[in-house]
C-alpha cells in the first residue's frame, strides 16, 4: 500500500473516466499540479468538469485540456487569461459556472468537511444569488451555497512524505489544501519527497489521510504570469510598489 507512484501517468492510471468531476489546485499558474494535468490530458478522458480557480493560460495548466477539448464545464472565479477559453465558451462548447473566489474556496472546504451547505453574505443582491435561498440571520441577508466534492483532486505541494503528509510553499498553497480533502481520490505531485518524520508534525498542512497517491516531480516548470520587479536603487520603496515590466 505504498502511496508513492513512479510517475504521474502511473499514479492516474485507471482513475480518470469520461464525465468525471476533477478539482485542480493553484491560483493563476502558481501552485498548479501541471504534471498531473498533463497526465489527465494523456488519459484521453472527455467531458470533464473542472473545479479550479482559473483555467490556465494558452498551452499551460488547464489550457492543455482546452486544446484537446477534454473539458466540458469549468467552475471557477476568474478565467479568460487564455484565448482558447473565450473561443470555446463563446461557441457554446464550454459551460462555465462563476463562483466568487471565497465562496468557491468555502464550498470546497465544506465538501471535504461533510458540510452540505452554508450561508454567506457574498453575492447577496447580485446574480450569484439568483435561484438560491436567501435568508436573514440577525438582521443581515445571506445566501445559501452548497458544498463541492469531486471524483478526483490533483494538487501540487512543496514537500510530501510517503505517508502522504504535505507542506505547501508560500502562495502556492492557495486552493490545494481544501481540494486535497474534497475528492474520493486525491493525487498529489510533490517537489521534494521525504521520509515520514522529516516534516515537523506541527507544520503539516495536509495530513496523509487525505492523499491516496503521490508522485515526485523534482523539477516542475514554474511560470510567472506577471513578472513585476523594482530597481535595486529603490530599496526603500514601500510595500507593493514598483513597476510592471
Amino acid at each position: 500500500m505504498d502511496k508513492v507512484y513512479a510517475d504521474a501517468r502511473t499514479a492516474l492510471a485507471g482513475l480518470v473516466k469520461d464525465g468525471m468531476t476533477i478539482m485542480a489546485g493553484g491560483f493563476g499558474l502558481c501552485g498548479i499540479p501541471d504534471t498531473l494535468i498533463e497526465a489527465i490530458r494523456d488519459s484521453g478522458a472527455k467531458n470533464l468538469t473542472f473545479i479550479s480557480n482559473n483555467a490556465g493560460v494558452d498551452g499551460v495548466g488547464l489550457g492543455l485540456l482546452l486544446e484537446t477539448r477534454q473539458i466540458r464545464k469549468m467552475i471557477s472565479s476568474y478565467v479568460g487569461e487564455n484565448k482558447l477559453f473565450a473561443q470555446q465558451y463563446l461557441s457554446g462548447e464550454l459551460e462555465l459556472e462563476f463562483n466568487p473566489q471565497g465562496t468557491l474556496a468555502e464550498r470546497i472546504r465544506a465538501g471535504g468537511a461533510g458540510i452540505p451547505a452554508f450561508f454567506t453574505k457574498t453575492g447577496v443582491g447580485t446574480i450569484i444569488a439568483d435561484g438560491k435561498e436567501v435568508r436573514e440571520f440577525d438582521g443581515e441577508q445571506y445566501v445559501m451555497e452548497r458544498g463541492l466534492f469531486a471524483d478526483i483532486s490533483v494538487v501540487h505541494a512543496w514537500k510530501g512524505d510517503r505517508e502522504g503528509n504535505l507542506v505547501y510553499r508560500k502562495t502556492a498553497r492557495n486552493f490545494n489544501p481544501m481540494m486535497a480533502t474534497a475528492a474520493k481520490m486525491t493525487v498529489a505531485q510533490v517537489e521534494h519527497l521525504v521520509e515520514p518524520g522529516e516534516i515537523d508534525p506541527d507544520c503539516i498542512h495536509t495530513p496523509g489521510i487525505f492523499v491516496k497517491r503521490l508522485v515526485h516531480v523534482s523539477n516542475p516548470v514554474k511560470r510567472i504570469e506577471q513578472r513585476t520587479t523594482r530597481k535595486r536603487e529603490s530599496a526603500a520603496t514601500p510595500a507593493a510598489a514598483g513597476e510592471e515590466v
Partner: protein
Amino acid sequence: MAWTREQMAARAAKELRDGFYVNLGIGIPTLVANFIPKGMRVQLQSENGMLGMGPFPFEGEEDPDLINAGKQTITELPTTSYFSSADSFGMIRGGHIDLSILGAMQVAANGDLANWMIPGKMVKGMGGAMDLVAGVKKVVVVMEHVAKAKDGTEEPKLLSACSLPLTGAGVVDLVITDLGVFAIDKKGTGGMTLIELADGVTEDEIKAKTEAPFKVALGQAPRSSAA
C-alpha cells in the same frame, strides 16, 4: 484640474490608520501602498493567501511561488504569514480586514457597486471582489469620475442606480474620483454626500458629471472614515 492617479491614491491613503489590515485591488488601489505614511504600521493582505505583502522583488529575485492576487511577483516581510484560500476568505468574510480599496465601473448613491461584468462582452469573472465588498469592514472605491468612450463621449459612473450587474449591494463607504470624494451612508438612508473637491474642481463641474443625487457637505470630516 482633476486629481492624477497618484493624487487619488494619496487621498485614498488618508483612510489608512495605524495597525490596519488592508486589501488593495488592481490598478490605482495598488499605488496606495506608495503613500503609506512613514511609521504607520499597515499590513497588506493578498486574497490568494498572504498577510504582510512586501514590495516587488529585485530583478532576478522573482519567485513563482510568491505572487499577489493580480498574479504579480512580490516579496515577503518579517511579518508575513501564508494560509489557504479558505482561510484567506474566512479572514475577509469574517470582517477581520479593516479596509478594502478597489476600482469600479459604477457606484450608486445607495452604495451598490458594479465592477465585474459588462453583459454582451466576454466575462472574465469576479475573482475575490464579491467576497471583499461583502466582508471587509470599510470599502473605498477609487475610480475616474466618468467613463470615456472611444468616440470621446463621457458616461457618468456615479449613478442613482447601477445599470451593470452588481458586485455587491449597499457595500461602498467612500468613493474617491479624480474630481472629489463622496461618502455613502450604505447601511442607512442618508445617500451620497460630496465631502471634498479635487484642486480647482467646482461643485458645478461635479454636478454636471454625476447622474447620482448627492448632498454637499464640504470641509466636514467624512462620517464613514471614523474607523
